[in-house]
């Protein structure tokens, strides 16, 4: 087999590989032929020593295709192996949770709840005041003003409440996640 015949056959056998891979491989094997010839061998001898092109192609495919990629992926997945928490970690998580997280949780929860109640009261007061003014027609100016003020206060308060609840949930989730992380990976 000449160099050309060998490379043609190899290229055919490599068919399923990407163009760049095939080009690279053919260049490597082509250079091998050139080196062999420079070392005083004939192309036939070089081809014989290289081995069957279809076998060579199979070896290339074995090394390059899925198994290799999968093996590397598997390595990556295996790495963050959750280890058993140490006594120090357990103490840390339990203490922080009992002394800081739980009191903070209930305090903040209480604050948000109180805020929400105040807003509801303000809204109810504003609506009642406006209705009263409307029905009786007395103190129309000052009543309307106070009622609208209360109403805006309520709307503003609800917005604050909305964001408070949102960030409260966010913070709680974050806390649980980071404690889990500490639990598995140490402090």
């Amino acid at each position: 087999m000449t160099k050309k015949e060998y490379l043609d056959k190899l290229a055919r056998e490599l068919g399923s590989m990407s163009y760049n891979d095939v080009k690279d491989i053919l260049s490597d094997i082509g250079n091998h032929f050139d080196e062999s010839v420079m070392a005083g061998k004939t192309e036939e001898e070089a081809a014989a020593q290289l081995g069957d092109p279809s076998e060579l192609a199979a070896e290339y495919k074995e090394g390059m295709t899925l198994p290799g990629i999968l093996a590397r992926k598997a390595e990556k997945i295996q790495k963050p192996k959750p280890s058993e928490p140490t006594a120090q970690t357990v103490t840390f998580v339990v203490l922080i949770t009992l002394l800081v997280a739980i009191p903070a949780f209930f305090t903040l929860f209480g604050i948000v709840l109180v805020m929400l109640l105040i807003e509801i009261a303000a809204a109810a007061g504003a609506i009642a005041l406006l209705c009263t003014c409307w029905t009786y027609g007395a103190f129309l100016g000052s009543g309307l003003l106070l009622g609208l003020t209360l109403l805006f206060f309520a709307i503003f308060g609800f917005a604050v409440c909305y964001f408070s609840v949102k960030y409260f949930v966010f913070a709680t989730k974050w806390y649980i996640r980071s404690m889990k992380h500490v639990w598995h990976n140490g402090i």
Partner: protein
Amino acid sequence: MNNQFKKGVLDLCVLTILKKGDSYGYDVADTLSRKIQMSDGTVYPILRKLASDGLVSTYLKESQNGPPRKYYHLTEEGEKRLELDKKEWDEFTEAVKGILEDEKNDKEGIS
């Protein structure tokens, strides 16, 4: 020698050759096929795999006669792998030797 035997060990051989100094494909193939009965071609898929795993890096270097050669260089990661694999190989061959020795002694004991 059995082909399955060789396959696993050739990576180790190629890494060892590159540990001595950078080399190009033909040279590695020549060195190996002088000592182990194998096709020259086998070395190339191994080099390619080692390169894609980051155990060796490649660069082109002018040669005196002919086109530039693609040289292979053992990376730090490659050296680490070589050490680990060599240790494993030594332990493995020791164990196999031990088993074969036991077998021989047993047979001699019986006869």
